[in-house]
């Protein structure tokens, strides 16, 4: 199969795709929670990147562009899908991670983008700003507010969760 489909892919794109696919997928999965939706959105975002690779390929933040596009696609499609519940109960050593995930998913979309681009993709603030089409100061504001919200959420969970007191 495949011989009947003409696919010509720029080598630079191929390298970026194979290198960044796991990160983009994980970013989308982190925020949407649905593996199938994350995979579809990631593929769609890379396809859109390939379609405009001539302009995008020279940008240092190409992977960031793909990530935000994938997040937008996922958000759009998630409104049409019921997100499945977690298949298994959380394990104790995953509780903190789940609290963080829940906290991130509760952030406004722009703060989510800033968190994912800066912390998961490791983009500097200036490149995060380029991807988000805003200035660096705005990115810093998003990050600061997101950190504060996450800290409040995590602290609140610590104080309200009787298990955390049991462990103490």
């Amino acid at each position, binding site marked *: 199969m495949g011989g*009947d*489909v003409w696919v010509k892919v720029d080598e630079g794109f191929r390298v970026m795709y*194979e290198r960044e696919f796991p990160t983009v997928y*994980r970013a989308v999965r982190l925020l949407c929670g649905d593996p*199938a939706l994350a995979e579809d959105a990631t593929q769609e975002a890379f*396809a859109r990147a390939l*379609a405009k690779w001539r302009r995008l390929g020279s940008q240092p933040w190409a992977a960031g562009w793909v990530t935000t596009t994938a997040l937008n696609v996922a958000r*759009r499609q998630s409104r049409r899908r019921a997100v499945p519940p977690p298949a298994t109960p959380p394990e104790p050593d995953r509780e903190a991670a789940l609290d963080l995930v829940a906290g991130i998913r509760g952030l406004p979309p722009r703060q989510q983008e800033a968190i994912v681009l800066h912390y998961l993709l490791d983009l500097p603030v200036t490149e995060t700003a380029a991807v988000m089409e805003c200035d660096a100061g705005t990115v810093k504001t998003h990050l600061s507010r997101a950190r504060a919200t996450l800290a409040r959420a995590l602290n609140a969970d610590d104080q309200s969760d009787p298990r955390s007191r049991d462990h103490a």
Partner: protein
Amino acid sequence: MREDHQLREQIRRSADVPTPAPMLETVGRRARTIRVRRAAATTLVAVVVAAGIAIPLSGLVGIGDAQSDIGSMGARAGLIGFEPAEGWAMAASDPSHPDDAWQQAVFVTNGPFAPADLEGSYQKDGIVRLPSGAGQTQRALSDEGILIVASIVYESRNPLPPLESFPARDLPLRLPAGPPETSWEGYSEGLSRYPIAGAVDGRFVVVNVYFGSRTPSEAAMALAQEELSRLFVGSAPPPSVDDIDHFGIALDLPSGWHGRLYEWASGSPILEVSTKSVDKHQPGDPMIPNRGFLASLNDVSILLAESDVLDPGYMPLSSPISIREDDRCEGCEVLDDGTTPPSHHALFHRPFETGGRSFDLYVEFCFDPGTADLDRVNAVLSLIRIEPAPTAS
């Protein structure tokens, strides 16, 4: 800084899940669809350039070399072709589906077709069919070599839109004045060409005349002009403003609504419906028709575009076509056209699948619609009939 580092590590651990295998081929196929749509939507010039080399050519079966027969067969089997002439060889593409017959491209050259282009070729209706176009022939043109590629790039039963990119032209076509182009998207090394686009007998036609030299001789230009004069194009049936029944999509336009159903070569069918006349759509306009002309509380535009990919994002449709409040899509682009609606407009997007075909439905209001407004549009949408995809034999 330490807290920052900790947060980074925590986020990475939280996101550390197994990943599926990348599927580059799927991405490439989808990207091609997006490119074609964008080209059709915003830069018809790009379609003009691509049309000669990007006609679908899948599903062909080769029966061997036919070089000696090229040019001697009946050339009028298709909607577009060249009258046979000594010294010229002609071949054509063969669309994979009978409904796509209008997408045929024809190739004539004053030299031999490259063996690589003839691999898998066969004859049908007296014309040699090239499974992969004439790209290798183009690359191998001698200094005096000429290759002409002609194709119809648009199909509709409705009047042609008045596009500046396709001025009305009469046959025989003439080579443009001035020097030929020496640089274009695709292979152009050592070559030159004249692209000619026009509306000929009710059809949008694109012809590319390639020369094997960047500075073709006067003799080569005269020879190319002679062959160009042998081009024929089958006349389109008289168009109708309300015949919305083509490509397995049909709609009886209600009073007060306007529509157009069309397909660009290498694209997919698109249905435009609006309370405003749809004949103003120009290259570079947003894909949604009449966005700039929607003004009153009765104005609505609809765009239904078939997608040539089926993916889980297209949910099965079990009831008449409609939009719902949940389909609001703030900040969305229509078919990735690079534009978003003005802030006071309301755009709805519903991707759906029916009968093995997938579609993107967009509806744009120039105001915030209420239930009655959605009902009014849904009454029109419910009139759209879509035939199932043909089953593979």
